[in-house]
């Protein structure tokens, strides 16, 4: 034991484990945690080099960390849950706790303890991880999608602060495009940067895909039409034409190649710029998504840990999560992540990691206005199907390509009605 806190944590874990109804007498020798490999290599390294050895030293349980490639986590998770074999602790993203509900353990007790100790959970996180009133995953952070822009070029056209409304951003974009610094917002079939700005755009005009009941498709509305019209104008008057074919990697590259002055992205552009292109890093900043007539919104990209139902010793897996989400471990791990993951715990609202660079702060501020893709509809299989089929992305992209607002909305409405089995 290295401190009183360690002693208390491990003792509580051991007592909890002993009281849990299970047959196994001895603690497992090893457990595995599977994660999508982090953009921040130091985040993965910290787990492997610091957290795992420390836990083994404390409990004798070896923790194997298994990173999988970006985009492959869902395949891996499906295999683990369907075959009931493999790592005991699995990372989940966005609404996956809903998709794998039956294959994940109820971790309400752990979540409540963590929340109590660390200032309470943000209210809107319940939508992502609480399924049928049971916590099926414990979130460690959000990978926010915000506006990333060149401060020097914005200043050149007289914009000293990132525009607060969509119309102001459009006006700034027109000036910047004339100056040879167009915008570049992804409209292709990538995995995040397209949804990252298009769902908030729809919501900010009052448009919705589906109602709370998950049965009433709401996309065919005047609010959606206004969002589509704005998007077409925004594309035509501010952007590079080839954004229609972009995926997530393209806007990063274009920004760092100084081809675009503004995009919607996670913090990765700034982090790479600071590391490899310091002169671009100095003039890169973040802004919240601008407000539309019906408010300001952002998209959730929740990252969580869950326990697979096949885990032979669920009490031991819970004990590990209790230890991992203890302030001493979680805090240091988040610092290693360079504020890339914004935690959902109020106790971390003023965490020192936010002081490293004031440009990180919008990623904390956006949590309050973040929603899951299908909001206000339920976060189940249908929501995932809509995302996987790029219903919303294609609606906006086709409008930008030149299709009429009426046609693109009708196509999206038909697809959504089929997905939600609505009349």
């Amino acid at each position, binding site marked *: 034991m290295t401190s009183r806190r360690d002693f208390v944590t491990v003792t509580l874990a051991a007592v909890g484990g002993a009281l849990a109804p299970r047959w196994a007498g001895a603690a497992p020798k090893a457990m595995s945690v599977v994660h999508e490999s982090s*953009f*921040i290599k130091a985040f993965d390294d910290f787990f492997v080099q610091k957290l795992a050895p420390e836990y083994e030293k404390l409990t004798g349980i070896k923790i194997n960390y298994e990173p999988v490639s*970006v985009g492959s986590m869902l*395949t891996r998770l499906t295999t683990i849950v369907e*075959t009931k074999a493999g790592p005991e602790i699995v990372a989940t993203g966005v609404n996956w706790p809903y998709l794998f509900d039956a294959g994940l353990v109820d971790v309400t007790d752990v979540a409540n303890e963590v929340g109590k100790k660390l200032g309470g959970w943000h209210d809107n996180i319940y939508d992502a991880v609480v399924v049928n009133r049971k916590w099926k995953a414990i979130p460690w952070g959000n990978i926010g999608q915000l506006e990333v822009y060149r401060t020097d070029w914005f200043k050149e056209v007289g914009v000293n602060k990132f525009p607060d409304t969509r119309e102001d951003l459009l006006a700034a974009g027109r000036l910047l495009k004339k100056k040879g610094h167009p915008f570049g917002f992804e409209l292709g079939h990538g995995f*995040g940067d397209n949804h990252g700005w298009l769902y908030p755009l729809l919501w900010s005009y009052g448009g919705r895909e589906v109602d709370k009941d998950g049965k009433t498709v709401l996309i065919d509305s005047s609010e959606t039409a206004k969002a589509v019209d704005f998007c077409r104008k925004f594309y035509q008057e501010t952007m590079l034409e080839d954004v229609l074919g972009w995926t997530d*990697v393209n806007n*990063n590259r274009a920004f760092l190649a*100084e081809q675009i002055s503004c995009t919607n*992205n996670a913090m990765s552009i700034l982090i790479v710029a600071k590391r490899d292109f310091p002169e671009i890093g100095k003039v890169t900043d973040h802004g919240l998504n601008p407000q539309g007539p019906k408010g300001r919104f952002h998209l959730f990209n929740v990252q969580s840990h869950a326990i697979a139902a096949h885990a032979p010793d669920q009490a031991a897996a819970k004990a590990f999560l209790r230890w991992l989400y203890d302030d001493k471990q979680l805090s240091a791990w988040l610092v290693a992540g360079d504020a890339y993951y914004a935690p959902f715990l109020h106790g971390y609202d003023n965490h020192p990691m936010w002081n490293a660079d004031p440009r990180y702060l919008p990623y904390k501020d956006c949590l309050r206005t973040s929603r899951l893709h299908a909001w206000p509809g339920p976060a189940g299989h249908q929501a995932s199907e809509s995302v996987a089929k790029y219903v919303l992305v294609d609606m906006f992209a086709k409008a930008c390509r030149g299709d009429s607002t009426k046609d693109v909305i009708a196509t999206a409405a038909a697809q959504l009605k089929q997905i939600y089995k609505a009349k």
Partner: protein
Amino acid sequence: MVGGHDLATRIRRLYLPLAAFLVLMLFPFYWMLITSIKPNRELYNARIMPLIVHQPTLKHYVDLLTETNFLTWTYNTMLVAVVTTAVSVVLGTMMAYPLARMRFPGAAVVAIGVAATYLVPQPLLFIPMSDIINRLELGNTLTAVMLTYPTLLIPFCAWLLMGYFKSVPRELEEAARIDGASRFQAMVRIVLPLCTPGLLSAGIFAFTLAQNEFLYALIFLAKSEVRTVPVGAITELIRGDVFYWGQLMAAALLGSVPVAIIYSFFVDYYVAGLTAGAVKN
């Protein structure tokens, strides 16, 4: 024929088309090479000529070899590809020969079954396969992929070899049988040597497929030290929405070297194999 013409004609009719073809074929490798030796600053600079390297660097190769398990992945890939290719060619031959040369009830149905098995998409198979591998407790071992790759490769090799076996005249085999050879001896001494190009074609294709396979390797090989190149490189060299292009291209280039060497050794047989049956003697 272009052999008998003067130099100008030869250049126009032979060397220019050949040069154009070479450029087309080698361009992807050239692109891999220059991307792997460009510093990041050049990779992201849209204002300079992208086909030339202005300040070449070996940093991406050094990083690839020192900061990742690339050499281990390469060893794993080669081991898996060699073993699965050998197993698949031997078993594929054993399956293809009777289907092509012997008359027995149900042969046609089995032959169609072989083709159909090859056509079953991997995404339908990976969960049941994973279940079997877990029951055998082979997760995170190279044996897992050595056992599963032949399920793809044996039907492929058998299907390819059936065509070659059918092209060998029966009379040759019958002559050997009359001279006292058993069916096995006739197969080993007469048919297989005549089908060497086919065996090499099947082997090279099987090797390439095994080397490039992604889905089973992703599912069964979770630890870095047992990964193959395709899964290892993508796991460690693509992070979020940032691609480590230099290292990725270095890995792709180095990863293609073994196949290039194998092709260069067997290219004559391989080409003969591709054109077998093209001309009726």
